């Protein structure tokens, strides 16, 4: 189903990567003002999550409805650092306890909690952005996959974890900022992240990181590991009987997905300037799955387009017809599942690519045509 040769990039992949790179690095920055560019930067942070879901769900057959948790954990780790930097004793001298974040002061907390202390260091925070969600994913993964919990049950339990996380964050207002989240973030090591210039720079940092993740994901998919994942999705027992430890592969890919989501979350915090529980819970987590499904659950590039398009549609429609947006989103869920299980990437592969190839083949008069078999929906 994926390219039959073992090269890291097939010709089609190279074309796809180049087109996406041109779009993200040249077309969008050239064609949009800073406000819109920042908006697209925000959409692209969701693409990180969608890429992770392609690995977990499309390749590995593990549907996690709790990716918002990892997105949020990454985002919160970043936000905690930025918040501490914004809460210098000088900046917060009107509080009854200067030097701690404002929401703690509002909640009668008089000293910085122990577990906030390490977030004074940028190095620690950057490591925590990836490490905290990965450790969390690892614990969940070990507990679930070792006991062979999978499929539907895994989806429901991850969803419950997303719910628990939201209730916890909202309930522990004094330590987490509650329902408003961590807001009013200003500078990163003295560099103001709210200026137009900073937003453009952050957009490009985000884009570069996205491509790093894309390359990692491509590598995972094309390696032997990627093929084992697909085998596992389709016939788990046979893979197990062949002597592979299925649980370890699942844990690995789940952690990888969590790491991608966390990087996206941290970039989200930097570009949008706050983090709140509304990006952690059940609803955002399922929306992240739909980005991946619309783009094509088997295609990492498709996932990026899916995240861009669905979010663009969301912004446009919810501005113009707020009533219709939910109906549209609901219909999108149903249509993608019933009619296009492989999303945009599936449509491209079935209809566009064969024609393009035929066009090129004719010119090059290449006799040995490649066989593009259509992708079938993964059996579950």
């Amino acid at each position: 189903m994926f390219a039959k040769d073992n090269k890291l990039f097939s010709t089609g992949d190279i074309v796809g990567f180049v087109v996406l790179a041109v779009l993200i690095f040249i077309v969008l920055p050239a064609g949009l003002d800073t406000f819109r560019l920042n908006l697209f930067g925000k959409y692209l942070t969701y693409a990180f999550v969608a890429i992770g879901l392609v690995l977990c769900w499309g390749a590995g057959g593990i549907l996690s409805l709790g990716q918002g948790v990892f997105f949020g954990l990454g985002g919160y780790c970043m936000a905690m650092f930025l918040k501490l930097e914004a809460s210098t004793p000088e900046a917060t001298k009107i509080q009854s306890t200067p030097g701690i974040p404002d929401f703690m002061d509002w909640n009668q907390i008089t000293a910085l909690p122990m577990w906030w202390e390490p977030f004074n260091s940028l190095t620690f925070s950057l490591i925590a952005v990836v490490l905290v969600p990965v450790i969390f994913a690892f614990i969940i993964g070990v507990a679930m996959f070792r006991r062979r919990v999978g499929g539907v049950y895994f989806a429901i339990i991850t969803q419950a974890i997303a719910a628990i996380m939201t209730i916890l964050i909202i309930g522990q207002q004094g330590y987490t900022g509650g329902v408003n989240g961590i807001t009013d973030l200003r500078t990163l090591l003295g560099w103001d992240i709210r200026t137009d210039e900073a937003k453009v720079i952050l957009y490009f940092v985000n884009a570069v990181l996205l491509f790093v993740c894309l390359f990692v994901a491509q590598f995972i998919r094309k390696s032997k590991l990627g093929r084992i994942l697909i085998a596992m999705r389709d016939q788990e027992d046979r893979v197990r009987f062949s002597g592979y430890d299925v649980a370890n592969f699942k844990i690995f890919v789940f952690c990888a997905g969590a790491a991608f989501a966390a990087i996206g979350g941290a970039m989200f915090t930097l570009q949008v300037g706050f983090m709140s529980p509304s990006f952690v819970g059940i609803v955002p987590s399922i929306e992240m799955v739909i980005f991946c499904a619309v783009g094509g659950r088997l295609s990492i590039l498709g996932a990026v387009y899916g995240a861009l398009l669905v979010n663009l549609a969301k912004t446009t429609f919810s501005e113009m017809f707020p009533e219709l947006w939910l109906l549209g989103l609901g219909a999108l869920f149903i249509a993608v599942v019933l009619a296009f299980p492989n999303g945009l990437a599936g449509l491209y592969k079935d209809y566009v690519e064969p024609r393009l190839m035929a066009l090129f083949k004719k010119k090059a008069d290449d006799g040995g045509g490649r066989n593009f078999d259509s992708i079938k929906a993964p059996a579950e």
Partner: protein
Amino acid sequence: MFADYTMGELGAIFAMQGFAGLILFSVFVLMALGLAIIFGQMGVINMAHGEFMILGAYVTYITSNLFADYLPSLFSIYFFIAMILAFFVTAALGMLVEWSLIRHLYKRPLDTLLATWGLSLILQQIYRSVFGAREVGVTIPDWMMGSLPLTDLIEVPINGIFVMVLAISISVAVYFMMYRSSWGKQVRAVTQNRVMAGAVGINTERTDRLTFGIGCGVAGVAGSAFTMIGSTGPTAGQLYIVDTFLVVVFGGAASLLGTIASAFSISQAQSIMEFFLSGSMAKVLTLLTVVGILMLRPQGLFALKLRK
């Protein structure tokens, strides 16, 4: 922490919290029964289950308004008619959904999850357009108001007792349907071995549609019962769906007894902890415990032995 209370007060507190837990238990049972039929028996993940419940609540709301306007003399019994209406309306919608959506996805459970989530978004928006975004409440008949004093310290609300009686009678009805009727036999046969059930002459497609419809109908009755203890808004269903799924999964998906046992333990744990901790922490701890136990025992409390 107990030092400030006398023994008598402590006893009363536990009794009242226990009773609050029993009301929560009835609510969980009502919610979970429909899902236990749909998810437990058919293996279909219906994320729109909460919206079916809300539909039942709205049907009750409409009925109560109609009775208040046209049949005020019969207002005290409108609720029973509303419940029957709620059952049939939601069951009809459920069968329509099964026919148009679910039956294409029996082999792809994870996709059903996404499709029914889409359905739930659509239903929510329809409710919001039709009934408005604000929560609506029904007028409760006089005989259901007030509370019943048991001792001078312990009081129990009458509508709570009513919901409890309702939960018990619906559980009994579902039990008889599942284990004593020929329909129930067919449903269980189809669950256990679809191909074989078809081979011995059971119309599996019709059984599926009917099962889904009845599961949704029970959800509608649950929603109808909710109007007795709270108000209804377009997004209220979403608040319950995770709890409901956890109750069913925790109980062991295919076991009716398990569903009731798990609803009981979860609701009691939550309502007793709520007294000592804040409401949100009680919920977090309860859910965490359930998730923890599910990690140790994925098949749930009461597992049905099945040859897959």
